């Protein structure tokens, strides 16, 4: 399974070359982030020392994105490529193959405990993974070779160790389109800290001269994330326990639900790429009637017509617009990741507490 040592050595050499190049020239490291949330995190950590290109911009739907030649150019020029992983960016492998990317590739979800896709395949026993990789967080700059090896391994295995290690017992029964795990991991602020650590480590590795700044930014950012987490917990804990089930367009809030004890239902599956059937819609309406679910939330990246009809039929009210997987424009309610999480939480609690 592991790639040949020659390949690793070549990649390592290329990495060393590129990293010294950026460090010497003093110009910002070109970083490509696959979608707006990761892009926002990278610019928070990298500050002026990174030049971030985001492939799927604000209000864009990453599930179904079609990369352009310009994206291939950005990727080929990038020193660091930050991806979400968990098969969220299905189009990414082809894009990387098409562009001669030779920088550091970081899978932002590395080390996260993912929620298995659909009917409870219990795979939360992945300590082998988290333990191994959490050590990366506070590494020093002089560990290049080891990290290169990590990155290369991940690259060859679609950046998803879980997939690889569980392939034998359940890999085949899943639709490969969605992957085996819910990829919307950023909907948990606890997970966001893992994202931040992974990104910081990669930036520091690529640009060792500014590593201290990156770690300073990281510390400040993590503080903000933690205080927002506490704030949201406070908001949600004010809700009565029988008013914590809501309906959204597609199934993107499982991590938010797990962290804060809110149940999310959706007519569309995990990816916006699937079409709802009459059965799914009928099931959802029945459930909403029997459980007395009172609020339905639209999303910024999905077709809202179906949900409006469901709200119409069940008499539920539309509680507002949530941001599942993309930030809003700069003048919208969710221009940054933290704004997005705060907006989602306040929209939910406002609608549910009425």
């Amino acid at each position, binding site marked *: 399974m592991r790639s040949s040592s020659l390949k690793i050595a070549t990649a390592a050499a290329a990495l060393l070359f590129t990293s010294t190049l950026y460090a010497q020239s003093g110009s910002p490291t070109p970083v490509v982030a696959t979608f707006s949330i990761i892009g926002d995190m990278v610019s928070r950590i990298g500050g002026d020392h990174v030049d971030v290109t985001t492939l799927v*911009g604000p209000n864009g739907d990453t599930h*179904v994105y079609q990369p352009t030649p310009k994206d291939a150019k950005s990727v080929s020029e990038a020193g660091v490529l930050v991806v979400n992983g968990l098969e969220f960016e299905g189009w990414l492998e082809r894009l990387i193959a098409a562009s001669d990317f030779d920088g550091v590739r970081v899978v932002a979800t590395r080390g996260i405990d993912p929620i298995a896709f659909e009917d409870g395949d219990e795979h939360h026993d992945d300590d082998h993974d988290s333990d191994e990789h959490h050590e990366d967080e506070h590494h020093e700059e002089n560990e290049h070779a080891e990290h290169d090896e990590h990155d290369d391994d991940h690259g060859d295995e679609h950046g998803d160790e879980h997939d690889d290690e569980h392939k034998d017992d359940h890999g085949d029964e899943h639709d490969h389109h969605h992957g085996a795990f819910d990829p919307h991991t950023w909907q948990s602020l606890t997970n966001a800290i893992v994202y931040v650590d992974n990104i910081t480590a990669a930036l520091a590795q690529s640009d060792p001269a500014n590593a201290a700044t990156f770690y300073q930014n990281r510390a400040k950012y993590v503080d903000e994330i933690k205080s927002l987490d506490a704030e949201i917990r406070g908001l949600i804990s004010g809700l009565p326990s029988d008013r914590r089930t809501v309906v959204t367009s597609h199934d993107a809030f499982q991590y938010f639900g797990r962290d804060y004890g809110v149940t999310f239902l959706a007519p569309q599956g995990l990816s916006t*790429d699937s079409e709802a*059937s009459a059965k799914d*819609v009928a099931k959802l309406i029945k459930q909403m009637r029997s459980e007395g679910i009172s609020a339905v939330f639209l999303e910024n990246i*999905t077709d809202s*017509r*179906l949900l409006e*009809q469901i709200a119409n039929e069940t008499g539920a009210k539309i509680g507002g617009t949530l941001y599942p997987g993309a930030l809003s424009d700069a003048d919208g309610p969710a221009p940054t990741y933290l704004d997005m999480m705060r907006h989602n939480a306040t929209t939910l609690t406002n609608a549910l507490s009425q």
Partner: protein
Amino acid sequence: MIDAIVLPFAEFGFMRRALLGCIAISLGATPVGVFLMLRRMSLTGDAMAHAILPGAAIGYLVAGLSLGAMTVGGLIAGMAVALLSGFVTRVTVLREDASLAAFYLISLALGVLIVSTRGSNVDLMHVLFGTVLALDDAALILLCSIASLSLLILAALFRPLVLECADPQFLRSVSRLSAITHFTFLTLVVLNLVAGFHALGTLMAVGIMILPAAAARFWAASIGALVIVAVAVAVLSSAVGLLLSYHYSLPSGPAIILVAGILYMVSLLFGTVGGVAVRALPRPHFES
């Protein structure tokens, strides 16, 4: 059995809405499809659907999920292609099929270009695939209005249309109605495709227009009977397709069109007018 058929519609408003929308499309689009088939223009329907797609997409990009903007956009794009290709056919040496293909390809490419430069927003293909399960009041009113209008115009144009099907040269020689008939008919095609687009999406809308007409061809010989059988096939496909989607968790639009496709295959094999089985049987001898 009865429960399985009636209950979904009795229990859920969205199922009733979906069925009503499909019946409206069946009534409007299928007779148009019959004439398309008789005039050997079935593929024109397909080309027009492609021509509408960019118009609807541009309408969506300009005004979001607005019924009006997407309808107007689709109508403009469809009519532009129909009129330009008709015009080119009548004043130059290029035949209708070639000029239509040329213009719809231009329209399609232009649409894809405009959509791509706007970047990937809400998945446009989803919008263009339509959502028969999400028909709101405005969409239903639009579908029913287009169906009514389409039936009235067909009734008014019935005679010249039949003549055009039978002998276009003759109609052209005796009446100036020929051109008017032709363009009005193309307008009807575009209108019904736009209506179908809201429920089934641009590509599936052609299916409900053409497949029932093709199936009816194996059961009836006269134009009136063709229209009646075709509408019946379309309504049956809609109801069965929706029920399949309800019971077996299938996407609704493709389910409806596939049922129409199955009915077509069955007609092809067992139809009484020129079906495969009838043709294979020994013909009766003319003896008395």
